């Protein structure tokens, strides 16, 4: 048995506890939604459930469909881009604030106001962690290490999920984010992320023999790079729609409804 197939089998069995955790998370979310005093949006609950299902699907993809670059790319897209968007749209922090009592929500509120979180939650920090991680995995021997060691692979997946969530939240998340920069900064971060993603996908497509380094099997590597390109497009398109939907809603609330001056020069910052 090769080291790579051992890693993959390990990943296959490691899925079960994660599935249990996911079911518990959905149950906790649904319970909190029922306890929220002013009710909770069903769409957000559905979004959270979808996110959990996407994690489950992404973990089950390689064991079910076989291990090749394409299924792994699909797994990474699901866990690094689509799941984070679904989870961020579920607004778990708002739900926690609503469901916890006034006293118990205080530590959470303090955390939200902390300077560390403002730095971490800045769209450009999130971009650096998310896209930087992506480049690190694909352009360094980390990729080969993740293929042979299940622990490294699990950490890479966890990083994709966490950094992807941070990015989706900082760019378009409905959850409260004190001192979040304005729309232009967030749009710039999304633009840079989309450009970096498209560039890396074409780079991998152009030189499948060079990157990722130490890549054992290149069959399907080109198709994987194309999947990365178009799959990334759709995810970034959705994130852009989420960002602008929030902008559109805010303008309905804050902008004066004057026909003559729809975009006041010194209007409230949106």
């Amino acid at each position, binding site marked *: 048995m090769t080291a790579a197939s051992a890693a993959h089998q390990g990943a296959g069995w490691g899925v079960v506890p994660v599935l249990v955790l996911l079911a518990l998370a959905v149950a906790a979310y649904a319970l909190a939604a029922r306890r929220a005093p002013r009710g909770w949006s069903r769409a957000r609950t559905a979004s959270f459930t979808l996110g959990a299902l996407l994690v489950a699907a992404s973990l089950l993809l390689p064991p079910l469909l076989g291990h090749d670059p394409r299924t792994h790319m699909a797994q990474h897209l699901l866990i690094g881009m689509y799941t984070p968007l679904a989870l961020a749209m579920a607004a778990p922090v708002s739900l926690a604030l609503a469901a916890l009592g006034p006293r118990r929500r205080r530590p959470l509120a303090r955390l939200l106001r902390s300077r560390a979180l403002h730095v971490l939650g800045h769209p450009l920090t999130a971009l650096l962690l998310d896209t930087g991680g992506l480049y690190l995995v694909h352009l360094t021997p980390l990729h080969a290490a993740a293929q042979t060691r299940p622990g490294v692979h699990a950490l890479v997946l966890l990083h994709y999920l966490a950094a992807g969530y941070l990015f989706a939240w900082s760019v378009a998340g409905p959850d409260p984010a004190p001192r979040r920069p304005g729309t232009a900064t967030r*749009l710039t971060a*999304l*633009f*840079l*992320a*989309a*450009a*970096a*993603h*498209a*560039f890396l996908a*074409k*780079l991998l*497509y*152009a030189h499948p023999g060079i990157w990722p380094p130490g890549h054992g099997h290149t069959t399907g590597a080109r198709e994987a790079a*194309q999947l990365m*390109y178009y799959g990334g*497009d759709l995810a*970034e*398109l959705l994130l*852009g*729609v989420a*960002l*602008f*939907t929030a*902008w*559109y809603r805010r*303008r*309905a609330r804050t*902008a004066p*409804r*004057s*026909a*003559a*001056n*729809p*975009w006041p020069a010194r209007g409230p910052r949106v």
Partner: protein
Amino acid sequence: MATGPRRAHREHGARFGRSLAATAVIGVGLMAAVDEIVFHQILGWHHFYDRSTPMVGLLSDGLLHAGELLALVAGFFLFADLRRHQALHRGAAWAGLLLGLGGFQLFDGIVDHKLLRLHQIRYGVDLLPYDLAWNGAALLLLAAGTVVLVRARRAPDRTR
């Protein structure tokens, strides 16, 4: 403080400009999407990557691609916002759309195809008629956009 008519004039100008900008951005994104879907995916004339593209070409391609994608989203939301506030200038909006479509087509035809040589319109054929048709269509769209723009500027303000 500006007087009534001057202020109205300025506001009309802002509406005109914003309507033009919103649909020009849509035009750019739309033409990029048509290029991607029709020529890359359906006809298969262009290639995803044609092996001669240098690294800097790939980088500029990535930036351009990201810009197109977000332009489409941004344009539609700006357009919807203008409509909601009944501040859309229809003539300017049509002009913007045509100018955006033609502008991107010409940019793609000159900068992407010829200067950066990211890809060609079609492979294994004489390129000249394709290039002429491509850039000619771009110029036609730009000319149509300019005509609409001039007429919209002259015409009395019509919001609906």
